[in-house]
């Protein structure tokens, strides 16, 4: 399984890689999994619990935890922001967007500038810009919209003197809402770019 992680890291510049298989053999237990972690990147902490485990169909568990994003439990309460994708992201590192838009609002300029100053002042910091959308519409199209938002922030940062090598972009689309529920208020909180470093 170690090949998997190494290959992933080595493949950053490649378009393609072949990882090794993780098989569910006989036990269906956790050692069947694919191990840690593609991102031994500076500035991004590997979090516990982010491994993926695969199971052979014949041994795959039939029970799993349920989760209801509309119910307002684990994934965030309606209309109220909670921790971001990789843990708490403070408000001065979140840029919000209008519906169907990747345009930077005037009031977001300050947030981007202050983060750009920190990054330009320390070239060893790598930031990940995580683009998000609200839940409406097609999931993969929303991945593309989230990337467009993150790239809009990235461009401004680079114009402000941040090195392109310091800024990575990843889009989660609608997969990691900050707020649960189907209100306009929740949607507004979910259309965002989180500046993670």
């Amino acid at each position, binding site marked *: 399984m170690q090949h998997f992680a190494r290959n*992933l890291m080595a493949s950053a*510049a490649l*378009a*393609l*890689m*072949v*990882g090794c*298989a*993780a*098989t569910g*053999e006989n036990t269906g237990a956790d050692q069947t999994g*694919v191990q*840690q*972690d*593609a*991102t031994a990147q500076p500035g*991004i902490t590997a979090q*516990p*619990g*982010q*491994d*993926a*485990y*695969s*199971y*052979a*169909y014949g041994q*795959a*568990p*039939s*029970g*799993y*935890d*349920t*989760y*209801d*994003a509309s119910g307002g439990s*684990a*994934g*965030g309460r309606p209309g109220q922001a909670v921790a971001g*994708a*990789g843990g708490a992201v403070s408000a001065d590192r979140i840029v919000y967007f209008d519906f169907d838009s990747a345009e930077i609002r005037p009031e977001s300029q300050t947030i981007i500038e202050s983060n750009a100053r920190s990054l330009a002042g320390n070239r060893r910091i790598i930031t*990940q810009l995580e683009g998000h959308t609200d839940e*409406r*519409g*097609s*999931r*993969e*199209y929303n*991945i*593309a*919209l989230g*990337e*467009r938002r993150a790239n809009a922030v990235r461009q401004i940062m680079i114009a402000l003197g941040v090195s392109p090598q310091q800024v990575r*972009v990843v*889009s*989660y689309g609608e*997969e*990691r809402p900050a707020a649960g529920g*189907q209100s306009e208020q929740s949607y507004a909180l979910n259309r965002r770019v989180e500046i993670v470093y």
Partner: protein
Amino acid sequence: MLLFGVGSFARAELTIDVTKGIEGGGIPIAIAPFGGGAPEDIAGTIAADLQRTGKFAPQSSGSPADYSVTGQAQPGGSRGYVVQFQLNGAQGSQLLNLSFDVPANQLRPVAHRISDLIYEKITGERGLAGTRIAYVAGGGGSWYLVVADADGQNPRMILRSGQPIMSPAWSPDGARLAYVSFEGRRPQIVVQDVYNGGRRVVSAAPGINGAPSWSPDGRRLAFTLSKDGNPEIYALDLAAQNPVRLTSSGSIDTEPVWLPDGSIVFTSDRGGSPQLYRIGSGGGAAQRLTFEGDYNARPSVSPDGRYIAMVHRRGGRFHIAALDLQTRQFRVLTAGGLDESPSFAPNGKMIIYSNGQRLTAVSVDGSIKQDFALRGNGRDPVWAPYGR
């Protein structure tokens, strides 16, 4: 509304609920309990399967009906149980009379097989009772890729991850699933063998790795990469190393799916709003396919290539719609809201979709609707092909 088939109580199990059937309630068919003492309610499973098609109205035995089913399941034969059944027409004419030797754990699959045989005999269409679906469940910290029978029973979690899982796609032989996994906090396209659990990362380029789709021969995957700056469609020969780029625009190109002739339909906002376009197997000039409304995305192609189902927005609501490529008729199939992720059943008659929380199936003509009642959520459903 009838609720069927809660056989066991695994958490997050699906059951199905027929909310809409054809006019007049369907073809009456009397199904007698199977004698013989097998530990499985075979007649109940057949009744539920036929009810779920929306085309039949199962009755208890003895009621007047157009068709009747009788059978037995008893210990014996070379494998543990012998299941036999007869399908008779109203005048007593025998239409089917078959027998199966099965082990105890195949009694439910055999019930589904019998349902499909009855369905096919009477309607002339292939049945879906013996097929399966895959979908994504969880969220907020734990994500699951689940394979379940087409009646929602027997859910199996074939992948769990602490990061999002998206966009599962069955290989044409039904043995593999391609999907997007964010493990390591970046998207990758993974192909997983459903039966042995083995996985292979087929794309981990910088940027988006999204929306995998199998070519009809199962040898190639089309998907979305943004490594060159914006999302473009690529095709990868799985025996080769490098994906070939098929689109070139400054806009979003994503969600490719193959037609049986090898051409590719995808979503693009090159015209200002997301619409569906078609290109040849090697790329080239794109032909716009959709003109209704300002948002048509996430195409799914029927197995015969005639229909394209999609996510369609009108009046701020998202619906599932279908375009008939032969007649150019465009039909909105669902009442709408947050409907997304349509996927055709292998007989081309039903489309399964999600509203982000629950799964529903609708017939291509909009006349039949089935809700999958989940304990927990389900999204990104994909109906598996026939065969295995």
